[in-house]
C-alpha cells in the first residue's frame, strides 16, 4: 500500500441545514505528521468540519478523505487510524475513569498501555473515581488520555482543552509535541490562539463556513500589518493618505501606526524629519485573528 498523499483532504466539502450553510465548499489539505491549527470563532464551522470528517453527518455536497480513504464509505477503516476528542466530555456517569478508558480502548482496538499509565500520571487523573464525580476538566482528561494512548495516526481534537487548568494545558501541549515527534498528524480545532501558536505548524482560519486564510504561522504573520512605533526629532509629517499606513496615532513627536506591505514610503517620510528611535513588532496570532475577523467576532 503506497503512503497516502495527505492525512486529510477535502474537496468542495459543504454542509447545509435548511437555509443555513454551516460549511461552504471547504478545500483543505493536511499533510502527514504536521500539527494543523483550525481557527475560527464560534459557529464558523469548525465542529461541523470534524463531524463530517468522522462521518457523523453527511455532506450536502463535496467529499473528504482521510489517508486517501473516503470518510463516509470507509468509515470503520478510517476510524481505526483516528482518535477524536470533543469539547464536551459526556461519558457514562456510572463508570469509573479506569473503566471508561478500558471500554474506549476496547472499542478502538488499539492502546499503548504503558503510555496510558504514564498519561494518567501526567494528567493527574484519579482513575478509580466515577465519571459523575469528575469535574468537567477531569472528564476531558479521560478523553485526552484515551486519544493519545491509542497512538492513532491522526488525532482530531475539537477544542480539546476546554476545562483544563494551565498546568494541564502544558501537559496537553507536550503530548501534542510528542505525537508530532512520533509522526502522528494532529488536527487541532481551537479558538485559544496561544495554544495554536505554541504547537501548530500551519493554520487555517475559518469564517462563516469558509476558509479565509491558510498557511504557515510565519507566512500568515507576514500578510498582516507590522506595528511601528517611532520617536522623531520634530513634529511628524502628514502620513495620512500614504499607501499601506493605517491606525495612525500621533502624540507630540511620537507616532504609532500599522504598515502593510513595503516600509519604504514610511521610512522615507520619517527620515526627512529625523528619527530618534524606531521599533517594529510582528503581530501576535491574536492580532492576526482580530484583523481577519474584525466585527465578525
Amino acid at each position, binding site marked *: 500500500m503506497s503512503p497516502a498523499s495527505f492525512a486529510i483532504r477535502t474537496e468542495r466539502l459543504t454542509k447545509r441545514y435548511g437555509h443555513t450553510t454551516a460549511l461552504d465548499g471547504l478545500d483543505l489539505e493536511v499533510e502527514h505528521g504536521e500539527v494543523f491549527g483550525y481557527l475560527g470563532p464560534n459557529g464558523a464551522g469548525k*465542529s461541523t468540519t470534524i*463531524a463530517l470528517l*468522522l*462521518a*457523523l*453527518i*453527511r455532506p450536502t455536497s463535496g467529499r473528504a478523505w482521510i489517508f486517501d480513504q473516503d470518510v463516509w464509505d470507509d*468509515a*470503520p*477503516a478510517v*476510524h*481505526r487510524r*483516528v482518535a*477524536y476528542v*470533543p469539547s*464536551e466530555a*459526556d*461519558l*457514562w*456517569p*456510572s463508570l*469509573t475513569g*479506569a*473503566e471508561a478508558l*478500558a*471500554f*474506549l480502548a*476496547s*472499542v*478502538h*482496538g488499539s492502546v499503548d498501555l504503558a503510555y496510558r499509565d504514564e498519561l494518567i500520571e501526567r494528567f493527574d487523573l*484519579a*482513575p*478509580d*473515581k*466515577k465519571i*459523575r*464525580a469528575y469535574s468537567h476538566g477531569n472528564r476531558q482528561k479521560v*478523553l485526552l488520555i484515551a486519544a493519545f494512548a491509542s497512538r492513532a495516526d491522526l488525532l*482530531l481534537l475539537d477544542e480539546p482543552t476546554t476545562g483544563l487548568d494551565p498546568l494541564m494545558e502544558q501537559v496537553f501541549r507536550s503530548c501534542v509535541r510528542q505525537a508530532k515527534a512520533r509522526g502522528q498528524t494532529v488536527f487541532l480545532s481551537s479558538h485559544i490562539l496561544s495554544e495554536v501558536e505554541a504547537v501548530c505548524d500551519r493554520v487555517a482560519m475559518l469564517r462563516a463556513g469558509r476558509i479565509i486564510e491558510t498557511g504557515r504561522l510565519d507566512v500568515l504573520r507576514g500578510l498582516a500589518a507590522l506595528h511601528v512605533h517611532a520617536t522623531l526629532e520634530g513634529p511628524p509629517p502628514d502620513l495620512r493618505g500614504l499607501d499601506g499606513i493605517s491606525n495612525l496615532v500621533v502624540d507630540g513627536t511620537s507616532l504609532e501606526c500599522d504598515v502593510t506591505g513595503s516600509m519604504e514610503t514610511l521610512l522615507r517620510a520619517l527620515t526627512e524629519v529625523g528619527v530618534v528611535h524606531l521599533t517594529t513588532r510582528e503581530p501576535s496570532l491574536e492580532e492576526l485573528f482580530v484583523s481577519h475577523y474584525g466585527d465578525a467576532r
Partner: protein
Amino acid sequence: MRAELAVAHRAFRQLWLTATVWAVVFGATVAASAVTYVSSFPDLASRQQIAASTGQDAGVSMLLGPISAIDTVGGYTVYKCYVFLTTIGAIWGLLAATRLLRGEEDTGRWQLVLAGGTRASRATLATLAALAGAVAIVFAGTVGGTLLAARNPDVGFATGDALVYGLSIATAPAVFIALGALTSQLGRSRRVATGLGMTVFGIAFVVRMLADSGTATHWMLWLTPFGWIERMRPFSENDPRPLLVAAAVVAVLAGLAVVLAARRDTGSGVLASRDTAPPRWWGLQSPLGLAARLDWPVLVAWCGGALGAAYAFGIIAKIATGSIPTSFNDVLGKFGLQGSFLRQFLGVSFLFFATLVALVPVSQVGALADEETSGRLVHLLVRPVRRWTLLAGRLALATTAVVVAAVLSGFGAWAGAKTQGVDPGLGSMLGAGLNLIPTALVVLGAGAVVLAVAPRAAAPAVYGIVTWSFLGDLLASLVDGLGWLERLSLFHYLALAPAQGIDAATACVCVAVAAALAGLALTLFSRRDVATG
C-alpha cells in the same frame, strides 16, 4: 419572587401539553363509560340485574377495582375507569415530577436556575406549584368530561358529585408527584429517583389488590393511595376523609422534598452513593456488552414486573373456577373470548401482560436515544464500529428481554394459579406467554424506526403506541360503537390466548412486519446525521 415565577412558568410550559392530553383522555373515558352505561342498561331492572350478577366478586374487584353501587351510573363509571385512570395518573405524575426535579439537575440546567436569584427550596416549591397546575388541568378534564356526560338527562350527575369524582381521580397524580418530588431528593439521578418511585407504586398497587381481595383485608385500603381513591366512593358516599389523608400525605411528602432540597448538595442525593469504586471489567469489551451492563437492572425490573403481575393474576384466577357473573361474561364476550371462564379470565389477563411486555422495548429504545442526545454515542461512532451494529445490538437486547418477559408472564400465571390448586396447564400458559412476543416486536420495530429518524421522539412514540393500543382495544371492547378503534390497536392482532387460539399466521405476519421495521430502522440509522451533543 420573580425568579420563582420564572421557574414555575418554565416548568408549566414543559407540562401543560401532556397534562392536557391526559385531561382529554380522562374526560373522554369517563364520559364514554357513563353514556354507554345508560344506553346499555336503560332501566332499573337491567341495572339491578348486572349488580346482582356481578355482586361483590373479590376476584373481579382485585382485577378491575372496587365494585360498589354499580346499579347506578356513577358507581358503574367509577368501577369502569378506576384502574386505568388511577394507574396512568400515578405513573404520569411520578415521571413528570422526577423529570422536572431530578432530570433537570442531571443535565445541569437546575444548577443554572439556582445560580439565579432563588434557592433550591424555593425553586423546588415553584416547580411543585407548576406540577399542581398540571394536576389541576387533569382535574378539570375529568370534571369536564363528567359534566359533559351529565348533559345526557339519563346520566344525571350532580355538579358536586362530578367535582368529588374529579378530586378522586386527581389524587393519584397528586400523591405520586409529591412522592416523585421526594425521591428526586433521595436519589442521585433521575433513574434512581424514578426507580424508587416505581417501587412504591408497585407496592401501593399490590396492597390495593390485597385490600380488595376480601372484607377481612379491607382495612388495608387506608395504606395505599389507590385505596384512598377507592374509599372516597364518588357519586355514592362522597367520603371526604380519604381525601384529607391524601392531602396530608401530599403536604408531608412535598414539604419533605422542599426541606431536603434546601439541605442537600446540588447534584447529589440524600441517599449515599460512592464516588469511587474498584474497577469491574465485565461488559467493557463491546458496545453491546456495555449496554447490557448499564441496562440490566431495568431489564430485570421489567421481566420481574411481568413475572410478578402474572403471578398475582394467576392467584386471582381461582375465582374463575366458580360460576361466571353475567356482567363479566358480557365484558369478556366483547373481547371475543371463548372457552371456560378460567380461560376467558386468563385471556383478558394476558392483555395486561401484553401491555407490560410491549413496554419492555421502551428501555432500550430510550437508552440508545439518550446515548445519542447526550453525546455519548459519538464516542462509539468515531471508533471502528459499523453504525448499524449499535442499533442491532440494542434491538437484540430488547428482543431477548421481550422473550424472557413473555415466557415469565406465562410461567408466572401458571405458577400463581397452581398455588391456589388451579392448573391451567404449563404448556398452555407458556404458549400464551410466547404469543405476546410478535406484537411486542412490532412495537420494538416501530420504536426503532422513530429512533432512526428522530431520537428524542423514540421513547414517547413507544409509550404512545402501547397506550393507544391498550386504550383502543379496551374502549372498543367496552363501548358500543367504537369497534373501529380496535383495528387501529396493535393488540387487536393479538389472540388473547388461552381463551382464543393462537393465530400462527397473524403472529408470523407480525414478526415479518417487525423484521421489516427493524431493517428499515437499521438502514435509516446508518444514513442519517447523528446528534453530536
